[in-house]
């Protein structure tokens, strides 16, 4: 092949340009730390990276939902625990009061203590998490029980609803984080009020029999709710460690997909730099001499 001077010059320029653009690309990878700059750098990896970003957002959000759900369940459990204590005390008082030998003014004192317990239970039923009443179903802004000890009358009515507060903890899976109050507190309040009335009335027969059973059933009901809440919390704890692991995996995958391998980039950059230097050196030698230099 016949080689001309402008061919040499053009080919030299073309190869210098190739080396330079390769170096430019590597330099950008190094300075940004990203392997994927544009979709066309690697369309398949771009799609994967976008999906991983979205999945990571979802996982983090589900993790946040889950933490919030656990806080609700913990608050509920603590309230129910306290209610159990109060009920057990009420049961002891019922057993005391059932004794025929007890004078009536002692029973009146017991009745006053039951009244205190009742008010305590109402307070528990009106527990708030932040600004929200946790035992109101979805009527979280409404106080579930309003009780005025000064005005005797029928047990206070439940002002909430039966709505379950559902939190999404993974794609399409929701967990109720609350317990509607009436299921738990209606029998307790009703029981405590009849206990108080029976104590005041000195109805020892009811105190020893029917009322004691009522209180026992209320305690049982509470324990059932507590174990249900505990089971939900357990399930969420398990899901939490799974989400943590998933988040870690996703972060690693994402980094593998879109981050530059710095060691590799540095080595490649060094190689490109050498090739560029070699091309420059070769160019300097080849474009200079011509026959002219040797004709006298």
């Amino acid at each position: 092949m016949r080689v001309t001077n402008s061919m040499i010059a053009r080919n030299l320029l073309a190869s210098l340009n190739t080396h330079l653009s390769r170096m430019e690309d590597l330099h950008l990878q190094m300075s940004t730390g990203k392997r994927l700059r544009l979709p066309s750098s690697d369309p398949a990896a771009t799609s994967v990276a976008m999906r991983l970003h979205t999945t990571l957002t979802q996982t983090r959000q589900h993790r946040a939902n889950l933490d919030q759900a656990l806080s609700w369940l913990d608050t509920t459990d603590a309230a129910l625990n306290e209610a159990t204590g109060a009920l057990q005390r009420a049961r002891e008082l019922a057993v005391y009061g059932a004794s025929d030998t007890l004078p009536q003014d002692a029973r009146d004192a017991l009745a006053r203590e039951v009244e205190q317990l009742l008010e305590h239970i109402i307070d528990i039923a009106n527990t708030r998490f932040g600004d929200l009443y946790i035992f109101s179903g979805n009527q979280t802004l409404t106080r579930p029980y309003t009780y005025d000890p000064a005005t005797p009358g029928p047990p206070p009515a439940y002002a909430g609803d039966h709505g379950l507060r559902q939190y999404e903890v993974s794609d399409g899976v929701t967990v109720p984080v609350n317990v509607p109050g009436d299921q738990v507190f209606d029998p307790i309040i009703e029981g405590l009020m009849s206990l108080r009335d029976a104590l005041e009335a000195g109805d020892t027969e009811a105190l020893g029999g029917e009322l004691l059973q009522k209180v026992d059933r209320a305690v049982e009901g509470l324990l059932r709710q507590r174990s249900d809440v505990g089971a939900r919390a357990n399930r969420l704890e398990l899901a939490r460690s799974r989400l943590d692991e998933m988040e870690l995996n996703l972060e690693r995958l994402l980094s593998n997909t879109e981050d530059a391998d710095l060691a590799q980039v540095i080595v490649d950059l060094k190689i490109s730099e050498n090739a560029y230097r070699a091309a420059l050196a070769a160019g300097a030698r080849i474009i200079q001499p011509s026959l002219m230099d040797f004709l006298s």
Partner: protein
Amino acid sequence: MRPTFFGLDIARRALQSQMRALDVVGHNIANANTPGYSRQVALLGATPAITPAQQAGQLGTGVQVMAVRRVHDEFIEMQLRAETESYGRWNARYEALQQVELILQEPSDLGLRDALDQFWQSLQDLHQQPESDAARAVVRERALLVAASFQHVHKQLTDLQLDLDRLVGLEVMTINSLTERLADVNRQIHRVSLSGQSPNDLLDERDKLLLELAEHVDIHVMEYENGTVHVSVGGLTVVDRDRSIQLVTQRDPDNNSLLSVHWGPTGQKLDIPNGRLAGVMEARDELVGGYIADLDRLARTIIQRFNEVHQQGFTREEPPALGGEFFTGTGAKDMSVHQDIQDNLAKIAASADGAPGNGANALSLAQVFHTAYTELGNASPADFLRAVVSSIGVTAQQARSMVAGQTALVEHLRNRKESLSGVSLDEEMVDMVRFQQAYAAAARLVTAMDEALEVIINRMGVVGR
């Protein structure tokens, strides 16, 4: 009989011919760096011999320059034009796609994907705490961000489309100016050819113009015997001899009033499959136009589907009412958040039954982004966006490798052309020395003949003087 001054004639012709050849060398050296220049060679040939009567042997009469030939291969030129057309088309597509990629800002935390993810996140937070005004405010802000992102990307893509449309007009102007210059060169070639000479430098100029034209548009070239060319685009003549025919642009009402290209005399629409002009038009209509349509489809689906779900939920007003429209607009261009929502956070319908603590509808709203819809080809909005971005990536990647391939091919053909037609200074130096020496020898021949003739003219017949 040999004429007396015959030898001087041979020497004269030799001097003239070698000098002419030296001039050609000089012309080559002078044009060593001229783009499109083909080296020329002085073809030397012996002048017709004479056959003297009653003598043995023909008598050579010397040398003359038969022709000055342009070293050149029409076949390489044809291939070069064809590959340059493809190069022009793919390069135009690639340039447009590079801009589309920059507009989309994917993969990064600045694009549409991130805006949608953030909006989804705010809805999830709302489903957790539907009572909270803070959570509602975040939903509103993120929704405004989604709408703004759609509008922004749409505007940038539309601007790009209009830029490409202006480029169509510029391309047509360039093509018209090139065909005018070609017609002019044709006229000059014709004039020179009448005198029976080969218009070498004009032919170089002609080929250069044709190659330049080929980068812009798909041309068909036919060469007449005298070296002038006939050029047609899509079967319609644009250059014939010394006449050029203009292409014109018109606004096409069937294509968003974008420009289409027509043949001047009849207004017939041109079908241009290759070259830069074709690439620009493809990028404008199929690529950028297609992406705008995809974006609109996504925005429309989100507006409709999101509103449907929103209208099934209940607001947090007193008393709770069914939700109204959340997004307004018909596509990416005019997507916005309804003024009611912007004015009153309670109008966000997060509840499924009206209870303030119910966030079930907010969850359903979040699910819109990950639910497959038939109008998106059974993909969810998130999947659809991802598919659009990766298809842009694939198209850009293909365009880039086509540009790289065509560049290599064109470069290879240029090298072949250069190898044949380019000026090699070494070669010219050798020729220069060769012709210079031949010239010196011919001059010496004059001296020899002169001395020989001097014997006859000045020294003969002087015996006994």
